[in-house]
Each structure stands twice: as structure tokens, then as C-alpha cells.
């Protein structure tokens, strides 16, 4: 199967997979430890509204999804800070409204509609080289921001009250984190589609959390796992002619299932 590597589309797919894997490992870790899984799902589904906006207005896909998901992230950040006890309801509403308006906008767009399945389930095999540069930019931005604010994010994620007492700008970091989630979601949609974003964001960190003793090691292990799942999933989807996004997620799910078994075989950790 190695002859496949000579095709440009496969090289692009692997490059995209690598960039998405790195971003997923970092942002997914922050999503999991800050318990923002539901919120991330809300942003991903609201992004569908952005696809509608892009189609009807003729804007590029990236502009529509990025604009709408950033706006959704901003509203959710305000909602979770101001109305903590109703935040999940507000997220649920944005989730549904985003999808519904996306569908209506696409209905209203004249002419033949593009393959919407590729937005729902991803299309890593058709990533053009130009998109790789956008992905690289997102990946590098996330990397730089998280390394720069690493200790602040660590303190905020572990104990936000204590972080506030140490003058960590918790609110600003929270907006920044949600903004980065929105950026990453737009990028991950390319690979596995908006329906499966959550799985790729959460499964690798969930597995990594059990084996690591620090947040940065959790990120590193998550990156390795994400890249591994994406590469193996791509291989299987090529060999058996399956939808790439769904195959990647099933490979990740397999990892999710066998990780406790592997853990059971490992020597017990030193007792507390």
C-alpha cells in the first residue's frame, strides 16, 4: 500500500492529519480538564451555520465557519461567566440554532448544493495544498499561545479561584481558550466533520490523562495518539474504501476501548 504515498492527495491528507493531530492533542487536553466537552460540541455544530453563511454569501468556507464559530464561542463564554447555572441550556440552544440556520441558508442558496456530507463527516482526502497553509497557521498560533500561557492555563484549569488570587487574568484566558477551541474546531471539521469533532477532541486526552502526571505530558501523549489514530484510520479507509472521517473515529474508539485493558495489564501504580 506504500505506493499510495506518491499521490499528492495522500501527502496532503497526511500533512493535514499531522497538523490536526497536534492541535487536537493540545486543545483537546484543555477541553477535557476544563470540562468544556459539551461547549465544544456546541461550537462545532454552530459552525454549520457558518457553512450556510459562506454558501449563500459566496464567502470562502473558512471565513463563514470561522466567523460563526468564533461568535458562538464568544456568546458561550459570556453565558458561562454570567449565568453559570443556565449555561448548558444556552449552549444547547446555540448548538441547535446554528445547525438549523445552516440548513435554512443552504435551502435558500440557489443552484446545486455542494456535497454537505463532506462537512458532516469530513473530507481529509480532498484537502488542497492551500488549505494546509491555513491549518499550519492555526496550529502554530495555538502552539505559541499555549506555550506562552502554559502556567496560567495550568493554574486556571486546576483551581481557578486560586489562580484569580494570584492575579492570573482568568477571564481573558477563558475567552482566549474558547477562541482557540473555535479555531481548532473549524480545522478539525476538515478532517472528521463536525459530527465527529468531539470524539477526536476528547478520546486521545481521555486515554492520556490516565497515564500522565502533568498537563504538558497529557498534551504530548494526546498528540501522539491523535496522529496515530488519524494515520491508521486513513490507511484503513484507503484499504477498504471507507469514509475517512468515520474510520478515524472508529480507530480512536477502538483505542478508547482497549486502553483500560492495557492499563489492567500494566504494573499497578504506587499506592497512595
Amino acid at each position, binding site marked *: 500500500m506504500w505506493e499510495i504515498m506518491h499521490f499528492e492527495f495522500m501527502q496532503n491528507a497526511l500533512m493535514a492529519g499531522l497538523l490536526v493531530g497536534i492541535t487536537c492533542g493540545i486543545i483537546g487536553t484543555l477541553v477535557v480538564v476544563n470540562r468544556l466537552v459539551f461547549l465544544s460540541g456546541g461550537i462545532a455544530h454552530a459552525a454549520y451555520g457558518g457553512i450556510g453563511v459562506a454558501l449563500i454569501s459566496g464567502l470562502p468556507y473558512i471565513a463563514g465557519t470561522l466567523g460563526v464559530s468564533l461568535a458562538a464561542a464568544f456568546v458561550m463564554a459570556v453565558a458561562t461567566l454570567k449565568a453559570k447555572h443556565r449555561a448548558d441550556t444556552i449552549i444547547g440552544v446555540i448548538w441547535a440554532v446554528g445547525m438549523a440556520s445552516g440548513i435554512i441558508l443552504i435551502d435558500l442558496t440557489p443552484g446545486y448544493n455542494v456535497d454537505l456530507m463532506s462537512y458532516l463527516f469530513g473530507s481529509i482526502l480532498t484537502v488542497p495544498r492551500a488549505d494546509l497553509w491555513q491549518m499550519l497557521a492555526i496550529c502554530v498560533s495555538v502552539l505559541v499561545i499555549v*506555550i506562552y500561557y502554559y*502556567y496560567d492555563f495550568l493554574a486556571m*484549569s486546576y483551581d481557578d*479561584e486560586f489562580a*484569580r488570587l*494570584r492575579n492570573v487574568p482568568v477571564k481573558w484566558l477563558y475567552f482566549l481558550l474558547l477562541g482557540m477551541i473555535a479555531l481548532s474546531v473549524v480545522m478539525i471539521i476538515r478532517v472528521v466533520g463536525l459530527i465527529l469533532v468531539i470524539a477526536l477532541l476528547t478520546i486521545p486526552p481521555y486515554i492520556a*490523562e490516565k497515564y500522565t502526571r502533568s498537563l504538558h505530558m497529557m498534551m504530548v501523549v494526546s498528540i501522539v495518539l491523535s496522529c496515530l489514530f488519524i494515520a491508521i484510520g486513513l490507511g484503513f479507509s484507503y484499504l477498504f474504501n471507507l469514509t475517512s472521517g468515520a474510520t478515524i473515529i472508529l480507530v480512536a474508539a477502538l483505542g478508547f476501548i482497549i486502553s483500560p485493558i492495557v492499563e489492567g495489564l500494566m504494573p499497578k501504580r504506587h499506592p*497512595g
Partner: protein
Amino acid sequence: MNEPIIDVRDLSFAFNGETVLKNVNLKIFQGEFMALIGPNGGGKTTLLKLILGLLKPDRGKIRVFGQAPRHAAHRIGYVPQNVHINKSFPISVLDVVLMGRLRTGRGWARHTRNDHRMAGEALGQLQIWNLRHRRIGDLSGGQLQKAFIARALVTEPEILFLDEPTASVDAKGQADFYGLLKKLNETITIVLASHDVMVLSSYVKSVACVNRDLLYHDAAEVTADMLDMAYACPVDIIAHGLPHRVLPDHEEG
């Protein structure tokens, strides 16, 4: 000289429409070791968080070292109740303690050698140096408490707030714990919140009882008023007087 370092005036606070604290007045002076007692849900934690600036009062004024709480809170070391801490979080004991040395705006900079030295000293002082590489979720309740105290100490606080610090510490551990607090109290003002009157060891210098209202007593004794307020019914507690008398002598023979 005799200015209070914490000055709370006519403080009221409501949460979800329910009054938690009403017209609370409290002055805390340098070098004090105060026990803040009262039933669960009586407002002890809320009062501490208001003084720390984590909550905003509905009415009244709080001054810490003569400043608004948010400007002075970094001079208070806070040891929270550990119930809400995320136990599965991947972080070592050492990294939790180093969090106390966090200064923002430093960006890329890692913790300095001095930060590590201070963290090491605090871990040693609390006798958990050997646990420093342990994952925080693997600690027992008492060990976790010590890790949080170490984190508060490396902030070089002038005041130490401890919220229910002895809840998960056994009797032997408590004796050591009070010994440590006594030593710290030589340089640091201490406020210790607990629902348990047993915290009134001989090291405590004054007591405030919080249950919506606040009653203050400048000795380590619980007055009859406090018991009435805290438990909302007349309570008859026999003072055993050993090792330390918690109740004053009965007022009328």
C-alpha cells in the same frame, strides 16, 4: 499601630435571593489567631471569599491592609476546602505547590530556582517532601490538605485563611497540625474556619461565630450567645475543661 489589617463593616451578602450574611462587622489585627466557627452553610466560606475578593458584597465595606480586597488578596494565603478539587487532574504535588509562586506577565519564563527552593522548603516543613512527585489525586485527605497549605505558604502570605483544614485529618495529625499553626502564627496572622468547636485549641486567641450574623469574642471561648446563634436552640454542653476549656464558666453559679 493598632489599625486592623482586615476591616469588615456592615457587610451583607445574598446568594440566589437568600441572605447569607447580614450586617457583619469584623476587625482582625496583626498576629491574631482567630477561629471562625458556625454551622455548615452558616456563611464562613462566603465571608472568607468576600474578604479575598472572590465574591462581591451586596452592601458594606471590606478593607484588607487598608485597600480593596482585589488589590490586597495576594497578601493572603488561602487554603480552600478540598471538596471541589478535581482529583483526576494530571498534576504532581510539586507543581501544585509551585502554583503558589505563579506571577503573571512572565510569559515563557519557567519557575526560577528560588521558586523551587521555596517549594522544597514548604514541602519539607509539612513533611510531604517525599510525596512531591506523586500525582495529586493519589494523596490521602490529610496529605492533600498539607499540599494546599504548602501552596499557600510559598506565596509568602501575611495572613493565612484555612477553610475546614482539619476535616480529613486524624487526631494525631491534628495535634501536629496545631503545633505547626502555632509556629506559623509567630509571623503570620491566622484565620481558621470550622464547623467544629473542637478547633478551639489553646493556640486560638479569639473566636468569631458566623451564622448569618457574626459574634466576636476576644478569647478562645464560645459564649452562650454564640451557641444560641449557631445552633438556633439553647444547647447544654458540659465543659470538660481538658485539655482546654471551650466554654466559659457558667455565668450564674
